[in-house]
């Protein structure tokens, strides 16, 4: 019954089109109209700041290690007060597949996915974002987390000065 199938195949699509002519459209006229993506939408990344307003990223390389397409590169450096920071931090959004693995790997909550998706561009270099472009002035989804308040090596708080730490031991005492 091939003939019957062909006839059906010719007319059915027209019928579908005709039906939808009388329904409300699901598309919007982008870019005149824009949609607000949900807050947990996975689009371009941001580098957030800790509650004290300092850069959260410690350039630990975990996001770049987690990235399946190798689009993150960075160089760590030491600030005068011993804080580890990125000397530079670069994401190539032309390569990024927005999988969110970097944000998942980040131990300091620094790198987060933001809902900003409008990255279309004709110049590939404009898709290469540096630290300055990525940094935002807020804490993103977890504004209260402060890495150095939990890992005690005396950067944000003096040595032994975090809530879960005892003051430095006196190694010269012989008392039990």
């Amino acid at each position, binding site marked *: 019954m091939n003939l019957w199938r062909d006839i059906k195949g010719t007319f059915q699509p027209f019928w579908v089109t005709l039906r939808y002519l009388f329904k409300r459209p699901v598309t919007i006229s982008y870019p005149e109209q824009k949609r607000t993506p949900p807050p947990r939408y996975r689009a371009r990344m941001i580098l957030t700041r800790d509650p004290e307003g300092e850069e959260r990223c410690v350039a630990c390389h975990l996001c770049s290690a987690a990235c399946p397409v190798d689009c993150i590169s960075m160089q760590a450096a030491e600030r005068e007060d011993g804080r580890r920071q990125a000397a530079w931090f670069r994401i190539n959004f032309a390569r990024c597949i927005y999988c969110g693995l970097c944000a998942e790997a980040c131990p300091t909550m620094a790198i987060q996915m933001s809902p900003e998706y409008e990255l279309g561009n004709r110049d590939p270099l404009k898709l290469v974002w540096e630290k300055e472009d990525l940094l935002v002035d807020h804490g993103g989804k977890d504004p209260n987390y402060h890495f150095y308040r939990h890992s005690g090596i005396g950067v944000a708080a003096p040595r032994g000065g975090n809530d879960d730490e005892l003051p430095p031991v006196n190694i*010269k005492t012989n008392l039990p």
Partner: protein
Amino acid sequence: MPTLIIDNQSVTVPEGTNVLEAAQQLGIVVPHFCYHEALGAVGACRLCAMLFIDGPVKGMQMSCMVEAKDGMVVSTEAPEAVAYRGQVIEWLMLNHPHDCPVCDEGGECQLQDMTVASGHSVRRYTGKKRTYLNQDLGPFIHHEMNRCIQCYRCVRTYQDYCGGTDYGVLGSNQRLYFGRFQDGPLESPFAGNLIDLCPTGVLTNKPYRFTSRFWDLQEAPSVCPHCSLGCATIPGARFRELQRVRSGNNPEVNGCFICDRGRFGYDYVNHLDRPRTPLLHGEEIPWSEALETLLQRLKKLIECHGSDSIALLGSGRASLEANYLLQRLSEQLGSAAPVYGSHAGRDRAARVATTLPTELSASLADVRNSDLILLTGADPLAEGPMLALAIRQAVRKGARVMICDPRPVELPCSAEYLACQPQELLQLLSALFQGETLPIKLQPLAEALQQAQRPVLIGGGDLLGAEGNTALLAAAQKLNREERPCLAMVLLPEANSFGAALLAADGPDFEQLLADMASGRIKALLCLEADPLTDCPDRQHLLQGLEQLNFLVVLDHLPSLIAAKADLLLPTTALAEGAGTLINNEGRMLAFTPAFSPGEPLRITGQGNHPPRSFSTTTPGALPCQAWAVLAELCDLPVDLAKIQRDLATQEPRLAGLPDLLAEGSGQLIQSADKPLAQPQARRTDQVDALQLLVCETLYGSELLSAHSAPLDPVRPQPYLLLHELDADRLGIAADDLVRLSAGEIQLTLPAQLSDRMAAGIVIVPRLRRTELESFYPGQPSQPCRVEKVSAP
């Protein structure tokens, strides 16, 4: 040989092996911290627990503390053992700062690995964490005590293995502290090994701090180029920059350790002024044009002045293959055989060293196992630092060490010191050879030699020279008997001095070349990674000779003095960027492989900030080529390292093993020469009255490559002059006085240091590159000099 069963597999191990090692032999991964193959076991970390089911011991035991015995049945996977180890990890993590993201050990941290492996992920304990204050341990090592797990590896490395005394464990109870009595740089020249040995991030590499992650580094098995011992190393690079060097493992040479010169001398590779493009009279030209110009110029000179007008100069810095191709090039051009080494005395001394039969040649492993070590004119810490560590291991097993030297030779272990004049060393060695009785003051030595079972004679090529080396080797052969082997070792100036000397055979040396250059016969000179301007003691003649050249070609990766004068400069790769072979002072061929490709480090192109925002199809500064490849092109040979090695092996039967050499492993000894050893000449010694100036190598500052390394800057010594206290008294000089030294035409003002542990009548100055002491050359007979106190202004 006990046989035991571990995890249902049976294994037979040598007597004295512990159960942990036995399990490792089966390929079972046993979690452990405090056990280390070079340090042994102490049972401090409690992590290697296994369940002993049957046999002489039963129950949960630390496998590193139990000697393997027949009939043992052991399980590493028993649920009790797994739970026990998990608990140990949980305890160790109670006080840990949980700061892996900012810890340089992250990614290569044994604690991280073990924690993940044990499944521990949440800190259940709610009490507070113990914290410590850190110390400043100097320019090489960063201290972060909060990460410590009290495994004692650092103490055992530093104090037991390396012989350092200024770092240890302090405190008691819950307050154990691993550090120094007070802040200050670690004194041991082997302190860098703490970085490799500490299983956590307490002791990390300071110059490398926050530079890269382990997983981002490009690493490859390589050989240290900073002395003639040829320790196995693993250089690590990222972003076209050599960022660190860690120790490889060559059981016959360095074991698992290297010295700080080898560890922190790498930065010459990243030097800002390093030649990176072919330059013709200072103008950049493409490689093809450079090679064409080179061949044309040489041909033209040969047409006008004959093939004798071309001279080729190899060196102990260049690989064996590149040095060999220099020979092929000379054959092709019809010129005289290449000269190897710009210091004729050192070259001759090295040539003697190559005549030693391999069965008499001592490796560092042999030194570690010997029971009497005689050092004649060898200063291990300066001329081959890891030798000092090998000697220490022998002493720990009860060996005696006797030092006969004019210099105050220091070792990281106890040793008997007999101050000798340089000429006395020769007398001593020829007396040993002749079987004569030794002078009274050397009697203890004669007795010790009588009793020793495995003596090793060690000489330094610089002080002994060719004549002394001949005597040393002959003496070793004489003392070597079936029932009592006696081995010898000679320290040479450069990593491949042996290889270069082997190729030199009976060829011309640099003195002949100088004479030819001075007479104007030589019109073109090609220097292969050689810098006569820093190494040739006869500077005046050299400058005259260089004046007369029409064409100076330099292949090098250092911004050397001769490179600055070159008509044609061809940039070559550094050791870590290329492949090839070196032969160490023992006659062991050691292969190295490229860790990364040359290029201008991103730190330079990016000027500290992000990499340039531009696309290009080329890498900046990527033009340096491997020297052997350049020479192969010049000789019109296929650019194929394996083929070159096969050619070399057929041409030089002593190198027959070269094509089969592997980069991993312990290298391969070359074959003995078929000639008998030369006999030392009887020697008449002149009595000398004047003060004699002796120029010596030092640990830091003398070796050429590491002299270009920034991480070593803080430890390089300032120029000084060393005098015997008696001489100083006579001249009215006190310690730290400024004195004027006049030797030949050179006059210098230097601060004086005094010692009573050296030969009298000798003035010692260190060879310090890139200081005013650069104009003094080691490896020369001592010369008369005058020292007088500079009166206060």
